[in-house]
């Protein structure tokens, strides 16, 4: 089984998000980058599914050379090789097109992504790759088992879950539950340095979106503290002042 895992290079989850240049650019100063946490879940499941010589895992990233440490981290976790499409990722449409172009003649059985990147929160790439390749896609999955040519998947729906099967090639975006994220060990870190990381050129595609400005949430007023011995007054405030119950 050949699995392609798409990884995104994102700011660490503890990053304080700020913007520069009149709020038109993300302020990258001092930001630590990590493998998108959901992509780590996808990667960890891919490694589990191919362990013991049952297949190979390739990671793909669309980004510039600065992303290489993040890609090496994915190799340290256990991917066999890596590809970087050398372009600044414009939007999900652009990224998905690059991944689809790379994958179209490579015969991957399965393409996995995380449910969303924690920077743009799109959850678009998996389904877009599926559409560009004209193969099924399943978004926000919680469980993935593969038996021969057929996969059984659980995906989240409002207030419950859906169990479905899919045969042949497909794309899925992984959420918590699919696998426990693997932590690289020393041997993994050492071998990651010498695993293949191929750089390929991007293909041209029309622009469909453009972020023109960022905003941060409006600051909240100061908290109204209610003494613990007057707890019951909270209900009245929520009813008559905040008008939410």
């Amino acid at each position, binding site marked *: 089984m050949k699995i392609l895992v798409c990884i995104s290079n994102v700011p660490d989850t503890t990053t304080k998000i700020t913007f520069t240049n009149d709020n038109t650019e993300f302020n990258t100063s001092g930001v630590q980058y990590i493998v998108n946490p959901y992509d780590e879940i996808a990667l960890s499941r891919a490694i589990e599914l191919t362990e013991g010589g049952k297949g190979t895992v390739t990671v793909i990233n669309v980004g510039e050379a600065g992303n290489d440490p993040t890609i090496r981290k994915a190799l340290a976790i256990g991917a066999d090789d890596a590809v970087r499409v050398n372009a600044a990722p414009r939007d999900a449409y652009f990224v998905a097109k690059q991944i689809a172009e790379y994958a179209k003649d490579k015969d991957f059985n399965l393409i996995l992504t995380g449910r969303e990147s924690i920077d743009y929160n799109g959850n678009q790439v998996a389904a877009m790759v599926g*559409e560009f390749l004209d193969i099924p896609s399943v978004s926000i999955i919680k469980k993935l088992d593969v038996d021969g040519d057929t996969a059984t998947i659980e995906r989240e729906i409002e207030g419950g879950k859906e169990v479905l099967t899919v045969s042949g090639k497909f794309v899925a975006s992984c959420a918590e539950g699919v696998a426990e994220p693997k932590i690289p060990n020393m041997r993994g870190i050492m071998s990651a340095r010498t695993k293949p990381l191929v750089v390929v050129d991007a293909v041209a595609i029309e622009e469909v979106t453009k972020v023109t400005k*960022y905003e941060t949430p409006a600051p909240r007023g100061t908290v109204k503290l209610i003494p613990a011995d007057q707890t019951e007054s909270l*209900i009245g405030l929520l009813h008559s002042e905040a008008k939410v119950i």
Partner: protein
Amino acid sequence: MSVLVYVEQAEGKFKKSVFEAVSYAKAIADQQSTHLTAISIGDVADSELKELGKYGASKVLNVNADQLKTFVNQAYASVIAAAAEKEGADIVVLSNSFSGKGLAPRIAVKLKAGLADGAVELPSTDGKFSVKKTAFSGKAFAITELTSANKVIALNPNAFGVKENATDAAIEAFTADVKQSDLGTVIKEIVRATDKVSLPDAELVVSAGRGLKGPENWGMIEELAGLLGAATACSKPVSDADWRPHSEHVGQTGIAISPNLYIAIGISGAIQHLAGVSSSKVIVVINKDPEAPFFKVADYGIVGDAFEVVPKLIEALKAHKA
């Protein structure tokens, strides 16, 4: 030019988030001086389809084919894109639900359209078609210009509200060719907890963290949520420890929610947690640590032990309802 809204049904019914998407799509149609058409796929009674008129849909395309009774995003995307082309719709709106998230990107590729998902406001009308959407897991918003001729917008639940705009909806049967290869995913089972409020589109949420000490103490959280008609949620350490299911985990690596009321009990308010809940309209924090960072973003706070405060709240709520 017109606007097309996809109305997702569950067991033949539309949820509030669907009426919200229709209300939002109607407001866009008004901005563009055009009309709104809705498309429903699956087995839905005419009386339910007529309801869509109440929120401004003047036409409803009803797709009721045997092979499309349950959700298959590939086939549904084909049908919706075909409807958009036939209706001359250049803007497609849908709810940013779990299924919507699997569907919208496929529609966008079919229509070569820019997609704004997680939209929280109406598009701007200053000559550029820009949509404000959530980014950085609730820590920011990105004003995203859709530069393509066709556009797809997935609206976040509770972002716009349901607005009545009574029109008489004309129902039309609609069919589109579906390739066999579009039916690659087959649903085997759907499990829905019918007695619980679904978290992503809940208006009220009661959430608890490690301060609860163990899964056996969730009874009072469930009781409080039950009295309020609220969904229950939890922090990451709680779902990581399997005290509660992952589907309840809100925060940066869980789900992001924007209810009208978020009550956080025994949650300190780490930046990753705040990211997922900061767009809640009203936040109540109950924590015994007065230095808990969550108080800085709360509207109301009680410094106290959850095991004393929550039972008092339950009593007060019972009295309030009586």
